[in-house]
């Protein structure tokens, strides 16, 4: 399956999902068309356009370089950093989360010297704490640094 055809299929599936969700909107009778009509129009447009995209992809060959994607390790690092940020902030607090996310991403981007990685992450997380928590007043659910200091 070409990249273009894959885009068309994914778009069609997204449009179908949107249409299903839009049909679930209750008509309240407050106006002539109701709260769902524009959403239905957008979803239908997406489905029709993806059919056009799929049809045109069958006619043209895919010239040029094929799309490359980042290696799986990048997505895993992104997901790990993301999960730590999303779920870790309430448990660990802001500063440890910054430290861990930075360490994971620096490692993923190619920094292999562990002392350097730890040092950058530690200094940076302290800097972020000072700027975002102390200066800008961002809410830190645990504020472990304040407890320590």
């Amino acid at each position: 399956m070409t990249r273009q055809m894959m885009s068309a299929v994914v778009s069609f599936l997204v449009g179908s999902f949107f249409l299903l969700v839009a049909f679930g909107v209750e008509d309240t009778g407050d106006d002539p068309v109701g709260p769902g009509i524009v959403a239905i129009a957008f979803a239908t447009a997406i489905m029709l356009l993806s059919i056009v995209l799929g049809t045109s992809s069958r006619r043209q060959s895919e010239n040029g370089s094929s799309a490359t994607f980042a290696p799986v390790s990048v997505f895993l690092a992104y997901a790990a950093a993301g999960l730590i940020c999303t779920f870790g902030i309430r448990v660990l607090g802001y500063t440890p989360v910054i430290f861990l996310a930075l360490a994971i991403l620096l490692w993923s981007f190619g920094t292999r010297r562990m002392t350097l990685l730890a040092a950058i992450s530690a200094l940076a997380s302290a800097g972020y704490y000072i700027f975002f928590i102390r200066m800008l007043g961002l809410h830190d659910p645990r504020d472990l640094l304040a407890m320590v200091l």
Partner: protein
Amino acid sequence: MSEIILGFSTVFSEPLTLGLILAGALCGVLVGALPGLTAAAAIALLFPLTFHLEPLPALALLYVLGKAGRYGGSISAILFNTPGTAASAATMLDGYPMTRKGQAGKALKVSAVASAFGDFLGELLLIFGAVKIAVFTKTLGPPEYFAIMMMAFVVIGSVVGESVVKGLIATATGGFLALVGTDPISGYSRMTLGFPQLEDGFTLVPLLIGLFVFAEVLVQAEMVHSKGDEDVNFRSSREGSRLPMPEFLRLVPTMFRSSVIGSLIGMLPGLGSSVACFVAYGEERRRSKRSGEWGTGVPEGVAAPEAANNAVSGPSMIPLLTLGIPGSTIAAILIGVFTIHGIQVGPMIFDREPALVFGLFSAGLIGILAYGLIGYFGAPLVGRMIAYLPPRIIYPFVFVTAFSAVYSGNNSVFDIGVALIFGVIGYAMRKSGFPIAAFIIGFVLARGAEEAFRQSLLLSDNGFGIFLERPVAIACFAIAALVSVLRGAQSLRRTKSHAKT
């Protein structure tokens, strides 16, 4: 004239606003110079930090950041043959050859001067043009607004990006997602899939940060894995760092013509800096007596695209302020800033908030001077900083800064999740050729378009016929149809010629 004096006095009476203008100029240059990070991404990052500011300082900071960011992209285009922003792609063509000839300093100075020149002319057009256009747009009602927004959907979706169909799909997807949440007319919630956090709909900040910043982190991670860090080396001789006055004066006609091109393109929603820079480059090359030398490192080849791409900035605010339709991605984000502060954009803003509007114009003019000076004297230093900071160090910091910016908006873990998911979606969109700008503009316009549509039908005695009774509405639908047919035909011709070869 008195209004612009009012604007300057408003800005100068608030030291915080003045300080933020300077900060915006500096940040914009730095961020714009980083390959991959656009001015839009920088605005998305700083946006939540402005929630606690008054409207004028918040808007001034982000508006000037956008301007300076457009200029900042030229630094990496000239020094590293990598455009910092799409708007600087044409600057590379002669900018990098100038660097290779030992004239990096001169190229950077030409870029700074041309950007400020073009931006200044564009800003004057905004200041004097917007007020005149607003007088006309005050007469428009819901049917006209719906038609204008539909035209914007179709035109922007068709013009932004390589593929008309993909652009329209992206616009429609952004439009659909904007409708999630509470229906403005009935007050009932819709399409929230049971998530209470979606009662107020998707918030703009996590979406922007996800699509522009987290997606860019993934792109950069891919590049680092495939190419590794590249060594960069640029030198500039003393002679190659100077821009003598006679040479500057020779560039003025080029800068002026390119500024006019950029300003006209800036007024048309969807086209933007990346189109303006190439149109101006091509036109000046065609006119030049030394057209054969273009591409080998001529100063005019830097001045033309830089004047044009920055001249887009001011006029792209005209459809925003007069109609509530963003003429660019940055303008689309600025709508969010206005909304957060409870200010409705449209022609009435000139009557309701004159101090704010003209304060913003004044901030723009001051910001142009600020980034022009920063660029003229500081661009080589910025270039050296970027050369010594590899992407594998910068982008992890960008990620955690983006996370902090999202969290600072609402202290919401849900928002962080949304931003991360949209980061992956944004990455997939870039890989598949779906323009993110079209998505954002669709997202920003959809609610207003829906409201105008349903209000029109409530007002109508004639059902859908109300749209055919208004000449402005008919004209807008006709333009939308014409542009989509023309772009579709162009796309089909390109497909057929690719199939033949």
